[in-house]
């Protein structure tokens, strides 16, 4: 997502109302966003998203396609991206609440287009936070996995070479430095040989 800082953000607009979509397109353009595609709602949506790979999607909350877009979040094979909702002015309280709670973002339709930029910025920030959390979680998990491998290699060395835990660890570390491999990579090799 680092390119968000430097390049124009590519937005895909999903709206069946062509007039409203045109107004929003202009507002987005004025605020430095690039509207790469304007899509009619429908089952072809997923294919279009995959084809044009936007950085962000803006959709009317009254579109049934919200469920399709939300499911994209859950399907890891798709590149996750922020989805901004476009809702009725009547729902403004709900929307404010939603934004505070971390839903990517809602844009109130028919009102002040000047607010578009700040709402989009909040949405992107929220999304980044969420992605950072997810990345952190994956990292923590993989560190755990790596530690498990190292422990296993140590155990095998202790059992089969009759060395102490400290000696086993030193052996792994020495080999890691000598071969310029990571500790867990050395551990993997040891396991594959000794097991």
């Amino acid at each position: 997502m680092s390119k968000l800082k430097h390049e124009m953000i590519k937005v895909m607009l999903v709206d069946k109302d062509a007039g409203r979509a045109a107004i929003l397109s202009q507002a987005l353009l004025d605020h430095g966003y690039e509207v790469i595609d304007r899509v009619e709602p429908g089952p072809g949506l997923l294919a279009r998203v995959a084809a044009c790979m936007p950085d962000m999607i803006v959709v009317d909350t009254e579109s049934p396609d919200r469920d399709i877009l939300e499911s994209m979040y859950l399907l890891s094979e798709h590149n996750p991206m922020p989805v901004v909702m476009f809702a009725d002015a009547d729902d403004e309280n709900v929307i404010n609440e939603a934004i505070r709670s971390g839903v990517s973002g809602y844009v109130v339709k028919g009102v002040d287009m000047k607010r578009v930029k700040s709402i989009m910025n909040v949405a992107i920030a929220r999304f980044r936070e969420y992605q950072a959390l997810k990345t952190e979680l994956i990292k923590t998990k993989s560190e755990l996995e790596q530690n498990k491998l190292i422990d296993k290699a140590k155990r095998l060395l202790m059992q089969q070479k009759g060395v102490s835990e400290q000696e086993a660890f030193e052996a792994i570390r020495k080999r890691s430095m000598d071969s310029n491999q990571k500790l867990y990579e050395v551990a993997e090799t040891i396991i594959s040989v000794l097991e």
Partner: protein
Amino acid sequence: MQKINIGFIPLNDCAPLIVAKEQGFFAEQGLDVVLHREVSWSNIRDKLVFGQYDAAHMLAPMLMASTLGIGGVKKPLVTAYSFGLNGNAVSVSNALYGQMSEYESQLVLKPEKSAAVLKKVIESRKQNGQPPLRFAVVFPFSMHNYLLRYWLSEAGIDPDKDVHITVVPPPSMVKALQEDLIDAYCVGEPWNTHAVKEQVGVTLITGYEIWNNAPEKVLALRKDWADAHSDIHEKMIVALYRASEWIDKSENHQLLSDYLAAEEYVCAPHESINNAINGEVCNPSCSSCRKIPNFSLPFKYQANFPWQSHAQWILSQMQRWKQIGDEVDIKQLAESVYLTDFYRQVLQNHGVKLPSVNYKQEGVHAVPWMLDEIEMGEDSFILVQK
């Protein structure tokens, strides 16, 4: 009278809300209910979670997802009323049905064989280097998704590897099939019958045949709201129960169909609405419809009883398909989301005879059975025939 806002999705199974409103069961309880038609499940969930609605017609697994905070904002939801059982079916495109027919003729009359035949098609496609079949369901957290996956895996098909499962909104299913964007789907009525009548697809099997009397939609409330308004919640349950009882009487079916067909509610032709009410599954290659009496059950066999064993099954499938981790305490979560005791307490006060337990053993009853002198429906899972 306090105004109560309830959101619903235009489907046959939202009927108790419409009947309770139109027939005055809400008014009898002193409730002034405003019904709001919604376009998507995500929308209905967000409006419930953020307080725009007091209650909502919702896919049962969405309550667990929201309570756990997956796919949306984390907010504990509860239910004490089920809108009914069954109502879904699996349909395939004409092209896929054609391929399946090469292995077995008259497959529309052999639902128990359909998944095994599908496996043969999938294997042959793999050998020929063709892409995997594309299936659609209505939402990642839905009985449609879990029933489809259950049925596929019973035939030895891996739903994550051998096919591709995507999400398409119910009213777009037929169009997606027609435009060759998907090869098959699992959806509620009238979207299976509609595909057959438009000659776009063929219905292979009903949800009832995959799991007899499976749960579907429930009345969802925020836990904090339900705790603070147990009096209103109680009245809602009584009104909806009366409505379900009314729906079950055949003499009311004409009026029911009129209510559902109305523009502000489901807005679909009477003919399509009636198929599910009458338990008819139509097929293009047969002159008559296949009769599945329990295709959709609105009231009989304790269809409105919120079984914690249903909630546990849903959670077990969420674990099976890696939507949630093994650390989730299924039993405890099922108890916190399904307020079975509350339902029983409310209706016992109104003289309704109800099961004394919150769980039943699922999958062991091949025929209707008695529990506390109350007739219960069968609950078997499909045995796919090779």
